[in-house]
């Protein structure tokens, strides 16, 4: 009798378990960096896709500075999450661990973004572009500039310093730098020194260790221009301890005239200071000496979705990605964070920010990064400056290192990474 009770009890528990499992929605794990998870748009859009499919999402959030390493380690050990959301270039990632993706969207990817989506070894599409194509530049406060009689675009470094002096006379901080975080000061160089790299066959020489950047006068000079901003007396006093949030606020409310950002800041300012967003524009960042080096940092990267090849929920994860590239989900994303859509025509329109419009207009006058890559290297991102702690090296110039020291240390680390990747020449 006692035994019978035990058996019935166990059966009951098993049934409850089975029903509970059946009643639970299917779950996908999504790997994401902490910076991205903090943004409203990304999660809101993915949650919308999950809602449409009737599934649950479990986010694995990793600190931004650890994201790449964790992703590569997970890839190497076959432990990737079902879905991966990232803005890193494929050359940094374990792309052979990503599943081939397909959908109506595939043929519509813009030429400038396509380079970021294809496995270079197999030619398979492994990334689905989700977020906008990037625009990096100098955010500016329109009212401050108008008040100081400064017009944009400013096309070289000396004109920029002159403009900053004019702004300073009006009692406003000309340029805001937030060097407490390592990722913001680097934008000053990402938006300006690519021109120097793209000359002749310098990139080829650097990526094969035939030439060191510290030996190239033009490179050291442009790093030095950024370094010397500190001596020019045009920065906010607390630039070493200032944060990105402080920078956005300063440029939005007119405490500062310029602040170097990615266009992701548009959505953030729009959500945090909705009344002030129309006062802020985006322009090129003239850290170069010669006007002919001017260019527009557009199409450098794009936030994409990938699916792990070994995912136990492979079909569901692929379906999730396709659901993300639909009108309802994309609209959720782009309404919160407007930007340049990485597709030619999806059959519906998405909001673009005024910043992207400005940069698109500028790209009619100046070349863009994307144009360069397409023209010179068939669209491939030839040299990835993110190797070698690029961000930390730029930040170190705002903590007392000289431009030459910073460039040397960057390339030393770059070479170590290249050696680990067994790149020829290192």
């Amino acid at each position, binding site marked *: 009798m006692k035994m019978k009770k035990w058996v019935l009890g166990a059966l009951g528990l098993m049934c409850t378990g089975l029903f509970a499992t059946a009643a639970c929605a299917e779950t996908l794990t999504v790997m994401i960096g902490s910076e991205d998870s903090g943004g409203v748009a990304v999660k809101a859009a993915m949650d919308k896709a999950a809602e449409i499919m009737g599934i649950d999402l479990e986010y694995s959030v990793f600190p931004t500075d650890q994201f790449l390493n964790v992703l590569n380690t997970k890839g190497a050990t076959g432990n990737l999450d079902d879905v991966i959301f990232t803005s890193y270039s494929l050359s940094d990632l374990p792309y052979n661990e990503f599943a081939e993706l397909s959908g109506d969207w595939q043929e519509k990817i813009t030429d400038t973004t396509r380079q970021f989506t294809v496995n270079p070894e197999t030619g398979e599409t492994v990334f689905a572009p989700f977020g906008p194509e990037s625009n990096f530049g100098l955010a500016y406060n329109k009212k401050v500039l108008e008040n100081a009689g400064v017009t944009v675009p400013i096309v070289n470094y000396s004109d920029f310093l002159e403009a900053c002096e004019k702004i300073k006379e009006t009692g406003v901080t000309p340029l805001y730098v937030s060097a407490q975080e390592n990722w913001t000061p680097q934008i000053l160089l990402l938006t300006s020194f690519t021109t120097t790299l793209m000359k002749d066959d310098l990139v080829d020489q650097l990526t094969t260790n035939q030439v060191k950047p510290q030996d190239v006068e033009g490179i050291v000079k442009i790093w030095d221009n950024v370094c010397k901003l500190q001596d020019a007396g045009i920065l906010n006093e*607390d630039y070493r301890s200032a944060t990105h949030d402080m920078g956005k606020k300063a440029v939005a409310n007119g405490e500062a005239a310029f602040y170097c950002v990615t266009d992701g800041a548009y959505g953030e300012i729009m959500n945090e200071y909705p009344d002030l967003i129309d006062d802020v524009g985006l322009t090129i960042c003239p850290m170069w000496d010669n006007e002919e080096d001017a260019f527009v940092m557009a199409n450098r990267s794009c936030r994409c979705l990938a699916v792990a090849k070994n995912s136990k929920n492979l079909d569901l994860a692929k379906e999730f990605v396709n659901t993300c590239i639909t009108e309802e989900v994309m609209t959720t994303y782009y309404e919160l964070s407007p930007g340049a859509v990485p597709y030619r025509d999806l059959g519906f329109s998405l909001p673009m920010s005024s910043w992207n419009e400005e940069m698109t207009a500028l790209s009619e006058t100046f070349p863009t990064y994307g144009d360069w890559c397409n023209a010179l290297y068939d669209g491939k991102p030839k040299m990835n400056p993110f190797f070698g702690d690029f961000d930390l090296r730029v930040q170190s110039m705002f903590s007392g290192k000289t431009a030459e020291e910073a460039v040397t240390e960057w390339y030393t680390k770059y070479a170590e990474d290249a050696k680990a990747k067994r790149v020829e020449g290192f």
Partner: protein
Amino acid sequence: MKKKKSIYAWWLLLPAILIYAIFFIIPNVAGMALGFTDWNVYFFDDIRFNGLENFARLFGEKTFWIAVKNTFYFAIMTVVLKNVLGFLLALAVRRESRFNSYLRTVIFLPIMISSIVVCIIFVSIYNPSTGILNQFLNGIGLHALAKSWLVDERYAMNAIVAMEVWQWAGLNMLIFYSGMQAIPSEYYEAAKIDGASYWQEVRYVMLPLMVQSFTITFIFSIISGLKVFSQVYGTTNGGPADSTQVMATFLYRSFSHGHYGYSAAVGFVFMVLIMLFSAIVFGILRKKEVEY
């Protein structure tokens, strides 16, 4: 019979030896071996022997020497300050009273807070423009003393040392306080009869009989000083410009880049350095201990 006894002892030791071997000896030996390879995240399954390359790279790296210097600086400074402050605090609160027992609790309280939380608090305190430290200094007219504590390479390391001392001096105080309680009152009475002043009692009675307490606090402080990580990671992450880089953050960073072979070499070298330093310090302290 003697042989049987010795086998019996080995059987008793076996579980401890096994655990020690699995969790310490084998990983360390494996780590040492990996230090001679190019194992990295990009070629996870294709490990190649690269001789002394990792060690040559390590010793040639400027940041490595900064990290070594900073680690020992942090360890020595915190050992000295935590012990001096802890001892003085113990002296101050050793007399039994309701106020002193309240004070002991207050001084001990920071230990209960997680290190990362302490970092968050101090990042806020040290903020050059909004932090209470600079606001206080400016408020009392000491503008010249208001500094960019964590973002200026000249002050950052000492600012972290001060934070560590604030958090852990209370533990040393407690150990010293227990040590003081353990000294029989007869010794003080005898000293008094001999006409010793208060400070002479402290110097000639209390201090020599408290060497065991000092050994304990030194060991704790040296260990926590040499393995410093969260205090730096949570405040400066090794910056500005590597000026607060310590051995653990250096190791963490190289591991973060996915250079596992190199990281193993870094870990091995650090282990040797720490073992040498600890052996010297413990050797000296052991000789100073007094039985009573």
